């Protein structure tokens, strides 16, 4: 790491006392610095956290990922929110390089170690009432909006142990609010950089898209490799009101040593389209929980995901599609390519609740095993309580098809080229379903780069 990067990412222990652990004192410090409603919510969340046992593999949703044995929460240190300035000159090359390769955006957020260090938004977009802000600052500037939406309907503390921990300890994050009828043409891009080994960072994202509005949100998490276990917990709450169109993309490119826990919940009202894409490349252990609720008639969600694992990486994608209203549609496609001794778990469930007639719900999980030590687990589930539905799911686990390779080699590609092409195509099929400017190119580039390595 360069001299300037070190300065930029200076940790407070160098400027002050030791960092707190994940304990009640840390929560109380946060409570003291915020408004009473938030303080109450944090304390209640901490209570839920303490009461909820650490999930073990005995629990269905954690069957293949044992954080109770691998994640040492007691050793992690919490970094309080800091006032920081983002200066591209001093920033790590991985961060600036990634930002430079992004296409145009309506606005940017840069988050350094869980504190928002920069935001900008096109003037014209801001004039229409769109808000893109640090969540910590928004507590003061948009108290009603936050009180109504933050850790309430979407991700309350009662959703689970890690949801509760995040709701108690979050330091900062992003608020995106799009008023009624406003279309934001270009995506909003958030880039996050995490630097301190041994730390735990809790960040939240709240997106509220009012009736008939449109917006895309791309959230990228980056870090170098960590010499010690480092936790990044991210809570994402997305509200798409009647007829709104929202695209949410998460690109996870953390280094080894990172535990990345991303808890996401999307709520789609009537006729809303709420599409998500989760791309997981990095971290040692990456767990994504995504619950998409289609709660208004005519709501629609495309749910896409891809991961590319190597070495001893462990990915666990846990999704649910909840159809609570008639004429709703969801379509999920998650793919994993696994090299080295990587392991991917997919657990997905479609729930069609009573009365959600004329529902279409699809779920597909495909796994490509590229090495003898890689492994995959797939649990695609259905729970159907309405009869007038079209539901299907499919899961496959397989290796590269020799006939495919022969076909490509018969055109002159080397075996390595043919393999790269098939893997890129396999994962690229996911991207082609959410053609968001620059994302397809960026992710394809990363895949090809990794295949060449």
């Amino acid at each position, binding site marked *: 790491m360069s001299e300037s990067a070190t300065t930029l990412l200076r940790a407070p222990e160098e400027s002050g006392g030791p960092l707190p652990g994940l304990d009640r004192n840390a929560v109380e410090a946060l409570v003291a610095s915020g408004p009473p409603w938030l303080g109450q919510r944090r304390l209640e969340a901490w209570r839920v956290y303490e009461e909820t046992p650490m999930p073990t593999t005995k629990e269905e949703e954690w069957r293949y990922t044992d954080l109770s044995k691998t994640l040492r929460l007691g050793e992690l240190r919490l970094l309080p929110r800091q006032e920081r300035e983002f200066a591209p000159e001093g920033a790590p090359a991985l961060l600036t390089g990634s930002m430079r390769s992004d296409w145009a955006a309506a606005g940017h957020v840069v988050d350094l170690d869980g504190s928002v260090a920069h935001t900008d938004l096109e003037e014209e977009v801001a004039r229409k009432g769109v808000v893109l802000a640090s969540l910590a600052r928004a507590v003061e500037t948009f108290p009603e909006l936050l009180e109504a939406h933050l850790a309430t309907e979407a991700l309350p503390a009662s959703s689970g142990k890690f949801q509760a921990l995040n709701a108690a300890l979050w330091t900062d994050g992003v608020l995106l609010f799009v008023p009624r009828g406003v279309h934001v043409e270009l995506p909003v891009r958030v880039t996050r950089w995490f630097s301190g080994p041994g730390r735990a960072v809790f960040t939240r994202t709240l997106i509220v898209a009012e009736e008939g509005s449109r917006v895309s949100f791309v959230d990228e998490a980056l870090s170098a490799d960590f010499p010690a276990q480092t936790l990044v917990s991210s809570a994402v709450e997305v509200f798409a009101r009647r007829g709104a169109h929202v695209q949410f993309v998460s690109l996870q490119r953390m280094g080894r040593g990172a535990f990345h826990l991303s808890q996401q919940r999307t709520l789609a009202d009537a006729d809303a389209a709420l599409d998500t894409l989760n791309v997981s490349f990095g971290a040692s252990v990456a767990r994504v929980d995504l619950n998409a609720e289609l709660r208004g008639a005519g709501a629609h969600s495309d749910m896409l995901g891809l991961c590319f694992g190597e070495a001893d990486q462990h990915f666990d994608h846990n999704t649910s599609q909840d159809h609570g209203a008639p004429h709703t549609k969801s379509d999920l496609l998650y793919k994993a390519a696994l090299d080295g001794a990587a392991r991917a778990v997919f657990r997905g469930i479609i729930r069609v609740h009573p009365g959600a007639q004329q529902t279409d719900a699809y779920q597909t999980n495909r796994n490509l095993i590229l090495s003898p030590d890689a492994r995959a687990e797939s649990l695609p589930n259905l729970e159907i309580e309405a009869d007038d539905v079209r539901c299907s799911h499919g899961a496959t686990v397989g290796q590269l098809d020799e006939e495919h390779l*022969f076909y490509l*080699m*018969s055109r*002159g*590609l*080397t075996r390595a080229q043919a393999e790269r*092409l098939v893997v890129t*195509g396999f994962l*690229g099929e996911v991207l082609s379903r959410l053609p968001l400017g620059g994302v397809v190119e960026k992710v394809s580039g990363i895949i090809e780069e990794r295949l060449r390595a």
Partner: protein
Amino acid sequence: MSKAPILSLRGLCAKVVDEDVEILHGVDLELIPGEVHALMGPNGSGKSTLAKVLAGHPGYEATAGSVEYDGEDILDLEPDERARLGVFLAFQYPVEIPGVSIANFLRTAMQARLEEEEELDLFDFQDELLERMDLLDIDPSFAERPVNDGFSGGEKKRNEILQMAVLRPRLAVMDETDSGLDIDALQVVAGGVKTLSAEDPEMTVLVITHYQRLLNYLRPDHVHVMVDGRIVRSGGAALAENLEAEGYEQFRASES
């Protein structure tokens, strides 16, 4: 003086890997540059096996004899090495490769022909691809579709011909054994081969087919009849017509 053969098979025997039964029992064949040869024969006679052995399919192995291409034995070469030397196999059943566009695939194939440090000029490639599609009367949007994914029979054949047009092989082996080939697909194959032959008179074509239909469009210089893994008769175009009238039984009978 006659030209040196581009392809010369001598006593070629072959079988499926991991199985004991031999399928080709000594095939002799010689192709001179610029010629169009037809290989005909009943189902199961070994025609498609021959096509796969020529292209180097890993599921087949030659157990005896030789395959000389341009004077060199190519039996030990990988399929991609053969392709880069100019051998092209138009597949009977082209496989579907989801997520990989035809353009991306062909660009990678063209890049593979270059030296390691050499970079394919993407603009030149794009121009070339458009020109080849124009030549074959294929809409430019076709190249953006994933390779054979969800294609009709005719579209798959069109894709094979397009690849042939871009890769400009010296030897094209057309495995058209499929008796179910519809008229559209038939015309795509025949029209494509004619167009490309007219453009490059040195290109050699070996058409493998069960029926004479395809040969009505593509007048072969030589016709070979394969029965039970051997070439039992060779002749001119008239031989194909004779087959249409008399069938393959005559050769079986003469064998036993």
